[in-house]
């Protein structure tokens, strides 16, 4: 039984609200009706109940005991509930013995019929009367307001509010996502209507913000989350994005930007100018420090198994910084002149440019650098360690491992069975692709930094694995895969049948020999292509490759296949060898083949070739080279320490560490993976070196190694509008000369290399060349910087996140993005600025001065296809630009408007002035901007077509420049942001204020305020005024020090609770716990926010909500339905 204040004596007070209610609702009838309701002792009406005399009516009735509960039928409770509760309290009753019936917003303003409005009002009053009889006295809880303030957005609104609050002695955090504060206003040249310089009035405020002891400025930062700290205050998590420049150390000298090779369009100059990857948006930026734009590892580098920084050296080549490019290359790769020639270049395969026209020739550029500096040196180790490490095999895996270990100070020793080092590089790749001296030089460089290579030293014969394991700190086995796979067809052992690798090894080590006139090469891989091209160079007249699938399935590099065909190699697809014909004396004479067809995909994902029965045919030939794959020669190692192998005849190793089942023994490269490409062997060598280093230092070998191999970049690049320019072919010797072992490609010249490098799209923006770090005297640059998370507690938040401009590309009729001389207003604004991209000159793209300019109003505004609202500032800024254009160029300026909207102090006068300056005003929305000329004087111009609605004719006006007065839109992430801050967006997508007139900077979330254009389009004047208003709201909150909370929390009637726990998981604020002593649920009122979800779910009715008990709502339902 609720505590009551005696038998209910209810007073009903019906408000006329002037005529707002009285004009629709028959008030005397309603009052008469109210008198008939149970417990109603008094029913009155008054013109304005919210006025002092109105409130006095209530208080008097209360004081004089006529009434002990109050119902006011007037406007929305969201408007005046607080007012009348206060009146009830002042009349001597608990303020919650009050209820309101909303007969204005919900009745008189929305109902056409007077009778029906009156009936509806009666129903709502009846409900309120029944409900208030069940009200109980409640106490409001006070919660302290934390005195710190968060302001989000550092435009003029945020700056103004921050300064106001800081001046009052309160602590402010100002968070801005860009590297500087200033917002859009910093981009403006002049401000209407006074035409004063924007920078002159803004920059002093910006520096004040920086200098103010009460303002903590967090630029390049974003609010990650806002959570309740307690019932009223907020815990805010802020991400401080890594700017890769230490803000406290950077002096803003700008030397870094001078050397930075990456140029990108400047956001601050709206893309009309450029900036560097390390940049400061504009010279007066606050804080005056630099930031590096890093989008992340570019796709080329990510795809590379050893993560060679391709974008870095490409960018440097494009700028002619060749020596620096070499340094970048050598950072990751000790074999660049080899990779530059024969790498299968996953970088190029994944190059973003490939989606536009053709990818860059990345290895070709690397080769260019290594050719340019034939005597470059590898970096020498900076420390020495005593441990010696044995490496079996001197192929790319072994060499890479040795290099990586040497750089860490170890002393690697390589054991090589062959007379030359290099493994498959030396024996398996023909010299016309990879000249021998290139390999020799690379190996000598490795020797120079202290790597020992013992050739002619087969492990298993000259020394055993066991001995290596005992004598060395660790062992890395990288013996490659050199044993030829057999066709397993009759006649394979006839003279004149060669294994591909056997053939290549013989030519490489002993020189070319005669094979006969007609040679067949069986297989479709890179080695098969190499063998075919080598066979040609051995004097064969006709070389045919026989492959059992089709060109599309050939694993060889398409460029290599193309080169082979160019040289005269023939291709025979869908044919598989059946029998090799010939005898011991004649040797091989012919090959019998079967025709194949493609079937369902096999395990490799390629269609499986299926033989066509009875389709045999014979190819005559003098020699056959079988190149269908290789396996490791594990047997050559002799005893194997019990190393485990797979059914494929390869070593079994741990995928992450490359360690074998024997501790301290690692294996990698082709002997683990089967035949694979060079860069993957190098990757294995590097991986093994990292593992060995960790093994010897007794560190976790597995931790943090996810990104060692190739991966795909997460981001995508917008390549739209990139002009097409195909890959520059690398010069090669003429075809006729391709019968010797002379290297086919001669490499790029400087000019060609620069031109090719300039095709790079700068995917990662910063190319990680690190030149900036070399010039920074303050040592402010830190590439390892990571985003930081900071948590703060605040009591109030002001959102001043501003706007974004309408994207004019969305209206193709206006030709933005198609015709170069169609500009947005902000672009022209930047041009008019003397610090802007044109130094204050208004110029067409080709540098000419415009003679006629058309300004099109309402672009994207007042248009139901885009934004139906008026953007409010465009008319005025168009007038301003019209004036500036006319002043600077003397051009005829035409304004095309729908309606001129210039309300505001001194705005109409500004319009008058423009009219008098002779600017043309044409009332009519532009239909089209076109380069379709219909008369000679329209040739070469942009023609604006519009109806001049005041004259009533359709006009075609040729102009040189079109300026689009684009409207203002909510920020792209406005919806995400407003969710984060628990507020709403209005119909245009701007943040919604609590009341359009009376609470323009408040929101429905307590303690969160909005200011400036994030609330709706507005000019600087109104923005500053709102910022002040928001600051005042915040200060009044802080100075009062507390807020009172609506006592609508939930509570448990313990005697009814069955302990079913249904409510506990429903509470979003974890306010409900289970009291196991009593076996009932318990609600922590300090956490309850009063949604009532638990109440609705409680099966026994034990959970109830103050102000919204089941009974109160039942009464309200009965009330609205029982009468009328």
């Amino acid at each position, binding site marked *: 039984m609720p505590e009551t204040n005696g038998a209910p004596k209810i007073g009903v007070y019906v408000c006329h609200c002037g005529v707002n209610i009285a004009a629709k609702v028959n008030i005397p009838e309603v009052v008469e009706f109210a008198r008939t309701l149970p417990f109603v002792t008094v029913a009155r009406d008054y013109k304005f109940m919210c006025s002092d005399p109105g409130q006095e009516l209530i208080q008097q009735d209360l004081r004089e005991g006529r009434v002990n509960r109050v119902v006011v039928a007037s406007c929305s409770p969201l408007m005046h509930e607080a007012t009348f509760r206060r009146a009830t309290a002042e009349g001597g009753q608990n303020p919650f013995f009050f209820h309101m019936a909303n007969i204005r917003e919900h009745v008189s303003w929305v109902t056409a019929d007077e009778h029906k409005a009156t009936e509806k009002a009666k129903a709502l009053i009846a409900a309120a009367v029944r409900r208030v009889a069940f009200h109980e006295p409640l106490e409001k809880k006070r919660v302290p307001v934390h005195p710190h303030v968060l302001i989000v957005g550092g435009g003029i609104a945020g700056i103004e509010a921050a300064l106001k609050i800081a001046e009052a002695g309160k602590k402010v955090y100002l968070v801005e996502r860009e590297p500087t504060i200033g917002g859009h206003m910093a981009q403006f040249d002049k401000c209407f209507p006074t035409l004063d310089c924007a920078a002159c009035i803004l920059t002093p405020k910006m520096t004040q913000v920086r200098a103010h002891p009460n303002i903590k400025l967090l630029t390049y930062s974003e609010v990650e989350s806002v959570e309740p700290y307690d019932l009223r205050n907020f815990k805010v998590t802020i991400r401080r994005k890594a700017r890769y420049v230490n803000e406290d150390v950077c002096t803003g000298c700008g030397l870094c930007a001078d050397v930075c090779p990456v140029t990108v369009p400047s956001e601050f100059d709206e893309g009309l100018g450029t900036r560097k990857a390390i940049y400061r948006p504009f010279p007066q930026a606050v804080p005056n420090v630099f930031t590096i734009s890093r989008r992340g590892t570019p796709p080329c580098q990510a795809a590379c198994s050893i993560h060679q920084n391709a974008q870095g050296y490409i960018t440097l080549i494009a700028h002619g910084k060749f020596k620096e490019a070499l340094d970048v290359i050598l950072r990751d790769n000790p074999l660049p002149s080899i990779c530059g020639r024969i790498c299968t270049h996953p970088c190029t395969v994944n190059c973003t440019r490939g989606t536009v026209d053709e990818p860059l020739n990345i290895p070709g550029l690397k080769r260019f650098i290594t050719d340019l500096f034939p005597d470059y040196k590898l970096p020498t180790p900076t420390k020495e360690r005593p441990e010696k490490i044995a490496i079996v095999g001197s192929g790319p895996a072994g060499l890479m491992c040795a290099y990586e270990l040497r750089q860490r100070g170890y002393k690697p020793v390589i054991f090589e069975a062959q007379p030359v080092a290099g493994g498959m590089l030396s024996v398996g790749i023909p010299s016309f692709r990879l000249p021998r001296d290139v390999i020799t030089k690379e190996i000598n460089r490795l020797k120079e930094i202290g790597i020992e290579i013992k050739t002619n030293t087969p492990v298993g014969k000259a020394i055993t694995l066991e001995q290596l394991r005992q004598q060395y700190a660790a062992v890395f086995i990288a013996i490659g895969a050199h044993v030829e796979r057999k066709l397993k067809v009759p006649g394979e052992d006839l003279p004149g049948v060669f294994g591909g690798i056997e053939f290549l090894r013989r030519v490489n080590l002993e020189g070319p020999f005669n094979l006969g006139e007609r040679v067949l090469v069986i297989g479709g891989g890179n080695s098969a292509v190499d063998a075919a091209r080598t066979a040609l160079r051995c004097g064969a007249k006709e070389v045919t490759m026989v492959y059992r699938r089709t060109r599309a399935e050939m694993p060889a590099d398409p460029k290599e296949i193309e080169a082979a065909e160019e040289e005269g190699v023939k291709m025979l697809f869908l044919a598989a060898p059946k029998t090799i014909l010939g005898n011991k004396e004649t040797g091989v004479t012919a090959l019998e083949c079967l025709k194949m067809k493609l079937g369902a995909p096999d395990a490799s994902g390629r269609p499986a070739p299926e033989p066509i029965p009875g389709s045999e045919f014979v190819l005559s030939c003098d020699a056959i080279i079988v190149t269908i794959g290789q396996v490791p020669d594990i047997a050559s190692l002799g005893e194997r320490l019990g190393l485990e192998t797979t059914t494929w005849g390869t070593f079994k190793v741990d995928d992450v560490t490359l360690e074998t089942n024997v501790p301290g023994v690692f294996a990698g490269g082709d002997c683990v993976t089967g035949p694979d490409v060079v860069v993957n062997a190098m990757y294995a060598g590097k991986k093994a070196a990292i593992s060995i280093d960790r093994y010897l230092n007794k560190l976790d070998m597995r931790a943090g190694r996810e990104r060692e191999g190739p991966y795909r970049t997460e981001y995508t690049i917008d390549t739209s509008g990139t002009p097409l320019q195909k890959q520059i072919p690398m010069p090669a010797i003429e075809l006729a000369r391709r019968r010797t072992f002379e290297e086919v490609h001669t490499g790029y010249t400087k000019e060609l290399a620069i031109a090719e490098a300039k095709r790079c799209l700068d995917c990662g923006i910063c190319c990680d060349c690190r030149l900036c770090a070399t010039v920074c005297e303050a040592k402010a640059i830190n590439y390892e910087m990571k985003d930081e998370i900071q948590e703060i507690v605040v009591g109030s938040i002001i959102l001043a996140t501003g706007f974004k401009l309408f994207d004019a590309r969305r209206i193709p*009729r206006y030709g933005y993005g198609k015709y170069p001389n169609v500009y947005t207003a902000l672009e022209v604004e930047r041009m008019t600025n003397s610090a802007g991209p044109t130094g204050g000159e208004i110029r067409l793209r080709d540098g000419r001065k415009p003679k006629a300019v058309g300004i099109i109003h*309402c672009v994207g505004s*007042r*248009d*139901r*296809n885009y934004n139906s609202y008026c953007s409010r500032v465009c008319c005025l800024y168009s007038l301003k630009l019209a004036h500036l254009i006319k002043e600077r160029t003397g051009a005829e300026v035409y304004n095309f408007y*729908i*309606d001129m909207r210039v309300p505001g102090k001194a705005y109409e006068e500004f319009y008058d002035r423009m009219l008098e300056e002779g600017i043309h005003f044409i*009332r*009519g*929305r*532009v*239909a*089209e901007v076109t380069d379709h000329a219909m008369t000679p004087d329209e040739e070469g111009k942009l023609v604006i*077509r*519009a*109806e*001049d*609605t005041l004259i*009533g004719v*359709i006009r075609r006006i040729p102009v040189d420049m079109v300026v689009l007065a684009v409207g203002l839109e909510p920020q792209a992430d406005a919806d995400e942001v407003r969710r984060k801050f628990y507020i709403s967006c209005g119909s245009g997508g701007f943040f919604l204020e609590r009341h359009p007139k009376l609470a323009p900077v408040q929101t429905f979330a307590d303690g969160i305020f909005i200011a400036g254009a994030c609330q709706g389009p507005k000019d600087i004047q109104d923005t500053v005024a709102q910022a002040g208003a928001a600051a005042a709201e915040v200060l009044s909150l802080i100075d009062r020090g507390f807020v009172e909370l609506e006592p609508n929390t939930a509570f448990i009637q313990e005697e009814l609770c069955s302990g079913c726990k249904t409510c506990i998981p429903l509470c979003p604020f974890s306010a409900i716990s289970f009291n196991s002593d009593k076996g009932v649920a318990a609600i922590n009122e300090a956490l309850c926010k009063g949604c009532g979800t638990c109440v609705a779910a409680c099966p026994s009715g034990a959970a109830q909500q103050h102000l919204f008990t089941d009974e109160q709502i039942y009464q309200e339902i009965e009330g609205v339905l029982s009468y009328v």
Partner: protein
Amino acid sequence: MKEWQSWPRFRYEAELDLRFPEEVASMPGGRALFACIQCGTCSGTCPLGTYMDYSPRKIIAMTRAGFKDEVLHSFTIWLCASCYACAVECPRKIKITDFMAELKQRAIQEGVYPKRFPVAVLAREFFDTVRKRGRSTESRLVLRLYAKTNPLKIFNQALLGLKLLRTGRFSLRAESVKNRQQIDQLLRAVDAVKATTFVDRLAREVHRGEVARV
């Protein structure tokens, strides 16, 4: 050119039909008419705007104001080629093309279409053929159009006709659906529901040969 004296000095409100805008707006989606802000995009976009006596913008303004006579007598509505350029550009999403079609229908209903304007004749000839046969045959349609408007014009186009005949593009065989009865049932049903009589009036006029009088 009209004599200047004949220009009316005032348009008296009493001469206007204030129900007209509401009637026109009763077409599907027609309420958008009242959203017009007279920006002139439609007129500027219209490829035929320069040939019109009133621009599409004016037609909308005049409809809203109740200038029924002027609107229904205007050439503008007959010049609309239904290219929909205005409709997709209209910032108020007014279906201007459909609005013009509505005005054409009303003009025919009121019998105020310009008699020498073959646009209306073509529409009606077309209507007639399809009603009877379910399909139209362009060649016959064209011949009937000329026969009913300006028989002499045929000679202007004789050469073109010959060329078309030679290339097999001018077949005089009348196309028809098989199930003519179904077409009849279908169109009758619309008539029955719609309970509009203008089609009959039209049929009568065609019958009386009124349209042939140029």
